[in-house]
């Protein structure tokens, strides 16, 4: 992931199609928030995933790609999924 790419998604709104949303969806899938999707549409699934991300990380819950959320998305982080049991299995 090139996390700095998420900067250009700041302010994207539901219903829009924005280049880079697919990368965000891959990120949210990787960390356990979203089933795999490869399109660039800001749909209800993405809104729900953003809401879950905000709740999990103690951010203001808006369902939007606001500044605190984008800043967190761009932060270096641990590779362990935030919901490891839901969409991923840790391979023991």
């Amino acid at each position, binding site marked *: 992931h090139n996390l700095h790419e998420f900067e250009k998604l700041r302010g994207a709104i539901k219903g829009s199609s924005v280049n880079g949303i697919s990368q965000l969806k891959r990120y949210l899938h990787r960390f356990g928030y979203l089933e795999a999707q490869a399109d660039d549409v800001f749909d209800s699934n993405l809104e729900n995933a953003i809401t879950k991300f905000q709740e999990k*990380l103690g951010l203001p819950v808006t369902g939007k790609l606001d500044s605190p959320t984008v800043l967190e998305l761009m932060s*270096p982080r*641990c590779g362990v999924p*935030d919901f490891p049991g839901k969409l991923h299995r840790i391979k023991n």
Partner: protein
Amino acid sequence: YAYFEGRPRWGRNIPMRLTYAFSPANPINSSLSKEEIRAAFRRSFGRWASVIPVAFEEAGDYGGADIKIGFYSGEHGDGEAFDGVLGVLAHAFSPESGRFHLDAAETWAVDFEREKSAAAVDLESVATHEIGHLLGLGHTAVKEAVMYPSLRPRETKVELKMDDVKGVQALYGSNPNFSLGAFSESDIYSNGGN
């Protein structure tokens, strides 16, 4: 605090002893000396050992160690590829796997006075976080806690917070020598709802 699904933990009798070793085949390639790296990990393991009845001991035998630590680049065989500078910094596996992988592409640091890179990452902070995973903790929403998933470059977060302590003590019990004295009143009570 949070756990992995099924709440796995190391199943040995309490008090328990876990050994750790560094991969001789995947050493760090940086300005840090082996001794600096070993010292950083020793401090990180020591923080967890001070709150639970689990002792950690460095072993010379990598193959026989409970916890296996190595620095890897890109795809490295576990399906969780590293992504180069920043992004994903490290990952570790739930009990009782013991695998602890760090991204070799990072500028790992133990002293920000010496390491001036804007992308430098504090090795001890990441080690402390990943040891939490090795013990069975997942990611928390408490931003100040060690088990919060993100860490900015040049940020240091090595001290366990009450959220971390309560989570790990629910798995292993309390170290008999553990005292709440090291924690501020606000820290103790701010996490009471978790």
